[in-house]
């Protein structure tokens, strides 16, 4: 994200406003973190590291409100890769707010704000169906190092990968397997809690 970077690539659609998602509309101010990078960009400083640092420190049930002087389109791909969703608000032509959050599993009941929100960790999907062994195994192992704490790697597989499980156990990852439909095996992988 740089002030010299084009804000929107040629051919990309113009920004159009969308309603604020209910999931973040219900999050109280106490659980909102703010990060204003407008001054950094005006001074010619790269704010990417600050943004990633704020995201790393972001609790699972919190939202980060990022202020920028333009719509940070390239950032969206980075957020998606890290399992974050976002909603963008244009306050003025040179004042944008991007609400960055992890998706909730169930709609938040606004009338019960004191109840803890059931939160599903950010999930990254990896589809290895139709690949010849050991390519699925390699793809999953390659992805593990970049798996953030709390992030879940959801692997879609043709079969139950018995050769993968010991590798996950050795590397300190927990995993659950189910079969949502015949012929589709889903493995959810996340860093194991060191205290368990």
């Amino acid at each position, binding site marked *: 994200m740089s002030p010299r970077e084009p804000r929107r690539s040629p051919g990309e659609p113009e920004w159009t406003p969308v309603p604020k998602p209910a999931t973040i509309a219900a999050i109280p101010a106490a659980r909102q973190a703010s990060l204003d990078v407008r001054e950094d960009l005006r001074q010619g400083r790269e704010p990417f590291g600050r943004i990633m640092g704020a995201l790393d420190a972001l609790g699972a049930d919190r939202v980060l409100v990022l202020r920028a002087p333009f719509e940070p389109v390239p950032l969206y791909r980075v957020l998606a890769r890290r399992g974050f969703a976002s909603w963008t608000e244009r306050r003025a032509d040179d004042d944008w707010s991007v609400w960055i959050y992890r998706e909730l599993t169930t709609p938040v009941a606004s009338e019960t704000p004191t109840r803890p929100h059931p939160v599903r960790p950010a999930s990254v999907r990896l589809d290895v169906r139709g690949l010849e*062994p050991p390519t699925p*195994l390699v793809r999953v*192992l390659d992805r593990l190092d970049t798996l953030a704490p709390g992030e879940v790697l959801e692997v879609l597989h043709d079969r139950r990968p*018995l*050769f993968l*499980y010991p590798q996950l156990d050795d590397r300190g990852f927990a*995993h*659950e397997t*189910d079969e949502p*439909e015949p012929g589709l095996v889903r493995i959810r992988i996340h860093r194991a809690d060191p205290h368990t």
Partner: protein
Amino acid sequence: MIAGSPPPGRGPSVLLPLAYLILASVAFLVAALGLPWIATELAGHYYHPHLLALTHTIALGWITLAIMGASYQLVPIVLERRIWSARLGRWQLVVLVVGVVGLVAHFWIGQWRGLLWAAGLIGLGALLHLLNIGRSLRRQGDAVQPLGRTLSAGGFVLGLAGLGLTVAFGLTLAANRLAGFLPIDPFTAVAAHFHLALLGWVAPMVVGVAARAYPMFLLAPESGGWQGRVQLWGLAIGAPVLAGSLLAGSARGMVAGAVAVAIALGVHAGCIVGMARGRRRPSLDWGLRFVLTGTAYLAPAIALGLGLVTRVVSGPHVALAYGVLALGGWVSLTIVGMMLKIVPFLVWYRVYAGRAGREPVPTLAQLTWPAMEQAAYLLLAGAPLALAVAVGVAIPVWICTAGTVLAGGAVAFAAALSHVLWHLVPSRAGRAAAAAGARA
């Protein structure tokens, strides 16, 4: 939907199937190298001590050890079941190797008394295999889904039943050698024993593995449904009916059993052709070419088998040619092809899986030696057909020539496998990983 995670612990054993497959390859090499030396005997009647020794080197040393070794890898992959006891599998291998060496040696020297203890050891080894795989298939505590009625599971169960019957009948024949209590002629008994082994044990295992492993390698849709049922029921009914009718001397029963088997294996071949045509994989590696070529051998083997049972053709030379097409063509080329797929995976997993994702590692293709695999294919693909023709016309020089070509192919196959196995040596693995890092 049944949820569950396997308990933490050791994964499928890699060295266990590798040990079986390496020893099976040694048996294949020994049998192939021996072919030119017994060309004269191959031009005679099949009921010759040296030919019985050769047949059992192939059937037990090569084919049975290869299938058992592949089972110890494919049961976890294809049927998603953990092996009940790897230790039992190791003891089973020791017992079987001693038994096979003893059996082949006693056939070779024509000592029937010693044959009995060797056959007993093989029976014990087969019993251990039935126990181990049977218990592995029954374990469902950590499984995603029950074993179900898949073609793969059906093939494995049918094959295990066939193994039990084949070994029990073989032990009976060995005992009959000494006591002479069976009122059947030895040629008929050998034919029944051969068909129980081929159609009761080997064929269902090939069908079961093919149903899931071939689509995995060809990147093709799996077959099943009515085609799977025809394959299983055809073999389940045809093999015992054919063997029983041979013993009972029932010509109609033999024809009925043979037709049922021919339909089953014909549908099996049709499914594989369908997979090959519908595959998403753009090019075939040498392992898959071996598998498909082996499947093509089903056509002449079935034709000759039906010709023998309907007495369109007859005689010991034609029977031997039929055996060469079935064991040397269909089964052996299929096993060679599967080994060229399975062994590199096992070695890669053993040496490099723990490093994958942490540092650059060689790909599976970088473990193999395609030029040597190609040489093996060029020599082995047509050699069983040439050998079948040679034994059919019973000309020793032709047999010696075809046998030499086949032996050359077996040497090339062994060299290609050795190239892969070399990665098990730590210094070689380190150099390969460093080379992968440099490429990355």
